[in-house]
């Protein structure tokens, strides 16, 4: 979240770094190279490798893994993953935007308290929060109990392990990640600009679409990045709420590394996913820049 704010501090830079300063910074630099740069490069190398019958990786160049990514089976799963993530993102924006806006408009003590109410689920493990929904949606769970008790239904509905359950789980897990960055932008928004739009004769819809949305776009873009991309690869929620009925790309990747023992193919899927992430990131940034200087 912090990384996506546009006020990311530039290296302030006092005096020029000497040998000592370089030596002190070396652990951090090495850590990032060893555990961020090298692993991703390794993943890229793996994705062009083959494997033997035992699942061991053979360093022999092949395009086969990428060809397999474009196999209709996997393309469909990839498409479905993107679809689920897109639906989740749209719902999160629609549900979260008014909340972020409302909180940003409040006066000081109330605003901080409401914000804290968003922070708590933001920090609470999504796993625990997803588990809470299992208790509600399960066949012998709370919702079915209530529905049967009130006589709405006679037989329990199967609510868990459905696409709807997956979407509920994803929205529930990611909603705070949408509200917080939008709040960050909405809070900075100068009310005078909205009033100016009013005074210049803009109706509420025009004021919203031509003033408020562009000005809070950085927050929306950051929220989309925090929701859309992670939701594509999230296998735990689909496992728990979908019961492996609707495998998404994350489940496939996870399978390749463990059950199927085809790490090179898993790596290729991972690289494709990373490229999707980079493209989304670049798009969000470009839109932000163009809206910043019309």
């Amino acid at each position: 979240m912090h990384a996506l704010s546009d006020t990311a501090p530039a290296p302030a830079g006092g005096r020029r770094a000497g040998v000592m300063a370089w030596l002190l910074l070396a652990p951090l630099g090495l850590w990032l190279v060893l555990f961020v740069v090298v692993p991703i490069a390794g993943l890229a190398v793996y994705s062009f490798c083959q494997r033997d019958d035992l699942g061991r990786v053979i360093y022999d160049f092949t395009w086969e893994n990428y060809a397999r990514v474009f196999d209709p089976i996997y393309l469909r799963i990839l498409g479905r993953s993107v679809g689920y993530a897109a639906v989740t993102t749209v719902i999160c924006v629609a549900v979260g935007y008014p909340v972020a806006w409302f909180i940003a408009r409040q006066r000081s003590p109330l605003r901080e308290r409401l914000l804290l109410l968003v922070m708590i689920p933001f920090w609470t493990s999504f796993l625990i929060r997803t588990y809470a929904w299992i208790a509600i949606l399960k066949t012998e769970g709370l919702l079915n109990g209530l529905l049967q008790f009130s006589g709405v239904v006679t037989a329990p509905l199967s609510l868990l392990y459905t696409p709807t359950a997956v979407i509920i789980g994803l929205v529930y897990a990611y909603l705070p990640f949408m509200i917080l960055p939008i709040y960050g932008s909405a809070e900075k928004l100068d009310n005078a600009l909205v009033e100016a739009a009013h005074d210049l004769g803009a109706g509420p819809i025009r004021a919203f679409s031509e003033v408020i949305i562009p000005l809070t776009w950085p927050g929306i873009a950051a929220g989309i990045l925090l929701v859309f991309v992670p939701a594509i690869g999230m296998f735990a929620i689909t496992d728990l709420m979908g019961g492996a009925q609707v495998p998404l790309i994350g489940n496939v990747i996870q399978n390749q590394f463990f059950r199927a023992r085809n790490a090179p193919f898993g790596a290729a899927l991972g690289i494709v996913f990373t490229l999707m992430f980079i493209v989304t990131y670049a798009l969000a940034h470009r839109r932000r820049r163009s809206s910043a200087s019309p």
Partner: protein
Amino acid sequence: MRPIPPPPPLHARWSGLRLLEAGLGAWTVVVFLFLYLPILVLVVYSFNASRLNVVWEGFTLDWYGRLWDDTRIMRALKNSLIVAGCTTVLSVALGTVGAWLLHRYRYRFGRTLQTLIAVPMIMPEIVMGISLLVLFTTVGLKLGFLTVIVAHTTFCFPFVLIAVQARLQGMDPALEEAAMDLGATPVRAFLLVIVPYLRPAILSGALMAFTLSLDELIVTFFTASAQVATLPLLVFGMAKVGLNPMLNALSVLFIVATVAFVLFSEHLRRLGRRAP
């Protein structure tokens, strides 16, 4: 804000705005209910004597008591605390020193490094998990505490670094100069003057790192062996099977711990902002 009072026609518009405001408020309440009701249900169930959740059969603390007797859960808890503890110490060291150096000195590639620091914070967890798994298997490192701690530190320390950087931006440069004038070496000045000044940010970053590490599932999933399974891994395995009253109790304890950490961290952050 505006110098002249609004002309009368605005009144009509204002009442419309007030209506909109009320609608937004109501919507916010609904969303908070959506966010908190499932958690509330979990809390209530954790005290339910019934094994099956739906029917309330009386209050009990039995499920909490049984947590202590469950060796699997206790071992996972121990693993989680070891991992989160080591991760926090490493993250604070890397993050605090890194933030200070980047603030104090001008480096070539400083900008590149700053970008690189943000990568683990925004990178999809599954990509981080599989890329580290590939690294560890390639160099022949057996999955265990070391691999999990390395993985967790990689995405935790940037949070400490950013928190400390935010506080450094408000720092008076005279603070360090004064210490140096009084004869302190740069290292002594850092330890005796800068670190105390940064304490709220360091503590708040440390709490963040601890919470993140404690809650992390996806990256752990790829970098841990069965022997060092952390609590989230155990919970994930149990939740896949279905409901379990002990799991309800465990989840509630997890939520209570997280809420405590968040409140404390927020308190520290506010303290840090208020101080000069």
